[in-house]
């Protein structure tokens, strides 16, 4: 009796599990008609554009999101012998060396690579990665605050340590947040290996506030955002993206004539995101087609309003709001991926003891 009951329960549960598995779409992996994209949380595309690709290529696209950018890259490296998919999108210049050194990608020169803005092309002899989008991490300012106080908004890193801007800036933790890290790298590029620490000492003396992540900095502390206004936030300067002011216009009802926030153009660090064909991909043919699609005109045109990034294809259309309210910086700070890889951990460590302790 007891045995029978237990067996019944076990069998019953097994059936439940099996039927649940059966209804899942895991059966799509590994067949030649499905191509799988592995990415991070920010991946987004219009449904119609993705359907166009599926129609034209004959492949069905599965998307797996593996957490934030750092997590997604590390997971891809961990599983490189038996990858979760065929193409990985979303490794940026701060993590690129780690991915390449660990042999994450195989060579493939995507169709249309010659249409990509020259300065973003990288790894030209092996073509292991293809640039897909770029974006600037910059200080945003709250226009209303500065006009009310009859103060000119800051335009450069040097401005931020002036007494006029004391206690106005909020930034993110460089050790856990990607804009926080980008801002730190921007100062490292600007002031060099020896100068950036000195700059941060002055920034700290000038009352910079550090919070954990972008959501908190922007929505809770920044006086120019919707959340900040509701919470009566008191920091009119925040480390965010050049595409944040356009988003403030696009996601408002009714749409304002001008953006409520602006970008301090001399405080920008350029981020570039890459995609590549994973080593040991089960469907290399489909993966190559998907990579071609990621730099096709159709996808590049569609991308800005979905992921709030700039296209890398020279002929791609940039939305009007981007041009008007969040243009890309003329002279952003940049760092070679290898240099970032060599110094990143040490810099973050020094930064932590300098700014947080």
């Amino acid at each position: 009796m007891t045995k029978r009951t237990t067996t019944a329960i076990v069998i019953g549960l097994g059936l439940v599990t099996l039927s649940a598995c059966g209804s899942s779409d895991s059966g799509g992996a590994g067949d030649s008609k499905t191509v799988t994209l592995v990415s991070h949380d920010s991946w987004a595309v219009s449904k119609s554009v993705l359907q166009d690709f599926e129609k034209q290529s004959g492949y069905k696209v599965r998307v797996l999101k593996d957490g934030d950018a750092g997590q997604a890259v590390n997971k891809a490296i961990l599983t490189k012998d038996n990858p979760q998919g065929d193409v990985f999108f979303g490794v940026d210049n701060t993590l690129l060396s780690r991915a390449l050194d660990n042999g994450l990608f195989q060579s493939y020169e995507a169709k249309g690579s010659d249409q990509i803005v020259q300065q973003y092309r990288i790894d030209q002899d092996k073509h292991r990665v293809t640039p897909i989008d770029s974006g600037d991490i910059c200080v945003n300012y709250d226009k209303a605050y500065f006009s009310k106080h009859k103060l000119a908004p800051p335009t450069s890193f040097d401005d931020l340590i002036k007494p006029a801007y004391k206690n106005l800036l909020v930034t993110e933790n460089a050790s856990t947040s990607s804009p926080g890290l980008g801002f730190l790298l921007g100062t490292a590029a600007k002031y060099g290996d020896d100068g950036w620490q000195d700059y941060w000492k002055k920034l700290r003396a000038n009352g910079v506030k550090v919070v954990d992540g972008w959501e908190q900095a922007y929505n809770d502390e920044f006086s120019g955002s919707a959340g900040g206004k509701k919470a009566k936030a008191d920091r009119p300067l925040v480390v965010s993206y050049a595409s944040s002011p356009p988003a403030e216009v696009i996601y408002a009802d009714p749409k304002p004539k001008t953006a409520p926030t602006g970008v301090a153009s001399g405080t920008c660090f350029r981020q570039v995101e890459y995609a590549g064909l994973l080593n040991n991909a089960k469907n290399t043919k489909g993966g190559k087609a998907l990579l071609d699609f990621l730099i096709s005109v159709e996808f590049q045109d569609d991308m800005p309003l979905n992921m709030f990034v700039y296209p890398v294809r020279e002929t791609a259309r940039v939305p009007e709001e981007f041009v008007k309210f969040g243009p890309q910086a003329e002279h952003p700070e940049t760092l070679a991926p290898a240099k970032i890889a060599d110094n990143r951990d040490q810099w973050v460590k020094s930064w932590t003891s300098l700014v947080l302790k």
Partner: protein
Amino acid sequence: MDLARTEVAPRRSRKESATRIGLMALPVAFFAVFFAYPVAAIVARGLKIDGVWRFGRIGEVLAQSDIRHVLWFTTWQALASTALTLLIALPGAYVFARFDFRGKQVLRAVVTVPFVLPTVVVGTAFLALVGRGGLLDQLWGVRLDTTVWAILLAHVFFNYAVVVRTVGGLWSQLDPRQEEAARMLGASRFAAWRKVTLPALSPAVAAAALMVFLFTFTSFGVVQILGGPTFSTLEVEIYRQTSEIFDLATAAVLTIVQFVAVGAILAVHAWTVRRRETALRLVAPEVTVRRPRGAGQWALLGGVLASILVLLVLPLGVLVQRSLDVPGGYGFAYYKALTSADSGIFLVAPIAAIGNSLEYALAATAIAVVIGGLAAAALTRRTGRLVRGFDALLMLPLGVSAVTVGFGFLIALDEPPLDLRSSWILVPLAQALVGVPFVVRTMLPVLRAVDGRLREAAAVLGASPWRVWREVDLPMVRRALLIAAGFAFAVSLGEFGATVFIARPDNPTLPVAVARLLGRAGDLNYGQAMALSTILMVVCAVALLLLERIRTDRTGEF
């Protein structure tokens, strides 16, 4: 020891242990496959370099002063949070268990709501209480954000329901006549409570304390958002080593440290509880509640309601208020925006996330109740070290970093027949890992309080163990089971880590959708995030209310 019992004993005990092993098989298999194996795999990946175990890493990591500092802070904030939660929530547990007042059911659902909210949202809500211009700031000019007090209070906010549900569940079934008898015999009110009620309750209090400790010991978002980046717990450190620095060896050492610390706490818990669980007289909860009488009881009720209002309802209210606070007044514009899929963040209207969330939560609850119920039944009679070890094993997932488990899943469950990496079932399975301990902890104090002689009587009369369980244990434990199921449901509804990891873009769950909206600039995104958070709260509260109204056909059998 009467003659009849000694004669049937040997045969029955064999049967019993066979039953127990049978009951344990499924939970043990579940934990082995979905917890022990993945975690072992990721720890091995970190410590085994070129096929050689590098245990020297453990010493190296522990020698770092900042790691020791993190360990110390993690432990003491968890202890302090647990103490504070018990202090504030135990009177609440009493009030919910013993008093009858209008709106009690709704309020009981409301105190569980914090559990389902993504931490990012809770951070926002809590700043309205402890931050600049918050309630405390306006009343007394006190600002607690970026202090450890903000962390502790937020932990109370999250874990209030744990105490109310675990302790209140047993308390409402304790026979008040025992305490009354002690009073008749001349004991003072306090002495009667201390000598009669407290010992009876202590297993449930210990269970609640253990749960709260484990939840706060592995706290991640609360510490980061409300404490600020200057505070760091083991969980945060493991996340950084795994996700940012990619130093798996250090992450593995920290995971082991977490294991050891949690193991020590479990051992202490087992040791204190073992002697205390005794058979109790349990009665139907309907019998024990009554209207408060006298000034003292009304004051207690008022105090508890006030504390719930300030600590729980106010932060939640802030979210509701902001979801209605549209440019130019109040209205439902943000809610209307949720029904369209025109923003590129989602391929479906955000509102569709409700259905996805419910599907996952129901599946996870079913798994947690089956696995947890079997485990609790197996653990009812405490005999032998094996069973105690099994008990501790079930609690471990609460004390191990979610990042570790997530990465472990990836490298362990990647080959047929267990290639679950992209399977739908992975999400409820991962969520059930957290739900099961709760089911066990809620049911066990009640099951162990059931008088064994009832079971023996039934067995002597010829009932099979299954029948004994159905006729004796189930009616007693029904309420605890529903409470536990409600909690497993809430845990799953609000769970974020596993869901992000697997949720397909066209199928976001509510917390994932909220996080995605908050991760983007713009008034409409922020407003929709608040509106969706409000919907998440309502869905959770309604689901719990419905669940607690389930009446099996066996009521009044006490």
